[in-house]
């Protein structure tokens, strides 16, 4: 489903179908997901293209946070000064962008999996996060690329004592997704400073052959980005 399409076009995969048809006034975008009502939008442009790619999972059902919290099903104890990489899964949303030569804009956003939110920290100074429970894997797990992505997570314990982690909070501003038809990937790091503090960040890999970089929803909203990092200060 991911790719670039000239309007009009029609695609269908599993329970999701997108149809852009010519009308008297322009084009009609119609998206049907399972048994939900059809979502329609009018495009007033003679020539435009549609890009469909995975985006940060923070917009459905409503954009209320910039942070994604991944909770691991098992706690991880990491030795002093040890660095280790593993894989975990994370939810994704399907972003639909419209563009002409002059400009592009987010057009639609689709989610195939239910969202859940959680508080990281206490009610006074904590932050609301999109919550997702994941297992951890030594190898890339098989996932549905329309629903989940795989995060390549590198954890470094820079502390001189053992530390235990059970979750990671990632800032959406730094999420760079790489995708092909079978897999959506994200690269993230976590630097443990002490037993309750860690710095997390998403980074771009040196080269990912066979993968395309997804258009970022935050970039398309033309927001000024202050930092891509997040400091977890309310426990790991």
């Amino acid at each position, binding site marked *: 489903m991911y790719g670039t399409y000239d309007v009009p076009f029609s695609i269908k995969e599993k329970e999701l179908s997108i149809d852009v048809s010519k009308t008297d006034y322009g084009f009609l975008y119609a998206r049907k997901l399972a048994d939900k009502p059809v979502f329609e939008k009018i495009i007033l442009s003679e020539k435009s293209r549609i890009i469909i790619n995975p985006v940060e999972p923070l917009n459905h*059902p*409503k954009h*209320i*946070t910039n942070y994604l919290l991944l909770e691991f099903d098992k706690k991880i104890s990491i030795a002093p000064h040890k660095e280790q990489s593993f894989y975990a899964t994370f939810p994704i949303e399907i972003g639909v962008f419209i563009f002409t030569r002059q400009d592009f804009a987010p057009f639609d956003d689709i989610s195939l999996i*239910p*969202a*859940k*939110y*959680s*508080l*990281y920290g206490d*009610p*006074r100074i*904590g*932050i*609301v996060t999109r*919550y997702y429970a994941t297992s951890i894997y030594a190898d890339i797990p098989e996932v549905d690329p329309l629903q989940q992505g795989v995060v390549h997570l590198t954890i470094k314990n820079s502390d001189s004592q053992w530390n235990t982690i059970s979750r990671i909070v990632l800032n959406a501003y730094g999420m760079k997704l790489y995708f092909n038809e079978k897999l959506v990937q994200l690269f993230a790091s976590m630097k443990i400073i002490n037993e309750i503090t860690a710095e997390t960040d998403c980074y771009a890999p040196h080269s990912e052959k066979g993968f395309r970089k997804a258009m970022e929803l935050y970039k398309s909203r033309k*927001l*000024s980005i202050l930092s891509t990092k997040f400091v977890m200060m309310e426990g790991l």
Partner: protein
Amino acid sequence: MLNTIVWGKVTLLRLIIALAIFIISIIISKILSLNVRRALKNKTSKDSMEVVVKAISYLVIIIGLIWALSVIGLKLSGLLVAGGIISIIIGFASQSIVGNLVSGVFLMIERPIRIGNTVNIGDITGIVEDIRIISTTIRTFDGYQVRIPNEEVFTANISNYVTNVVRRFEYDVGIRYNDDADKAITIIKELIYNEPFALKNPEPLVWVNDLGDNSVNVNVKIWAPVSEWWALKTNMLWRIKKALELQGIEIAFPQRIVWFGDQRQDNDSLPIIKPEKED
């Protein structure tokens, strides 16, 4: 004509120049405010933006005013001397204005409320529209605007409903005594689990907290993001009721069973009431 003396040594020309300076300073403050608002949009909170905008705006106007006064021969040093005497007179005459002004300054420093916050001040509940130097404006949920003097705001009990990022609400759901409370708890928990904005952490609580006169009361406590709190609170209770009824669990209502002795013949479940023996 422009050299005509208007007052003391002040000519008409100087008066016009002073007025022009003051008007231009107001115009400059407006233009600056507009540009600062544009520059800070999406980069800072509306509240912080308004504080910066007001500070710049007042500063430009004050500079303009001092300049304009100096053009007509009123020096700042002279004003300070005169101000010492005048301020005592004004101080007595305008105690409430000064009180409001000082309270306004403290409100801006302490910041118990911010623009856009949902608050309760005294008996007024609504959204803070603006915090000015003398008064604060609240838009109530009925849609009308209330102006509260800052002194009143500062000394009143303030409840700020959106200071924290999350907020909790609760229901008491009364089910019948012959319904399975464990099943009811499972159904409610599942409903909460499937609701995105019912937070995973802090964990929701669902428990039997009271064996009432007519019902087993299940208490439900849910945390939600402060922006979604009201919408969730207003729709969750009815969804709980429908989910329970779908599984055969009904909401109890006050009832009293009254029976008479001879009704025992028609209903075996009723206890036997022995008629009192006549002596």
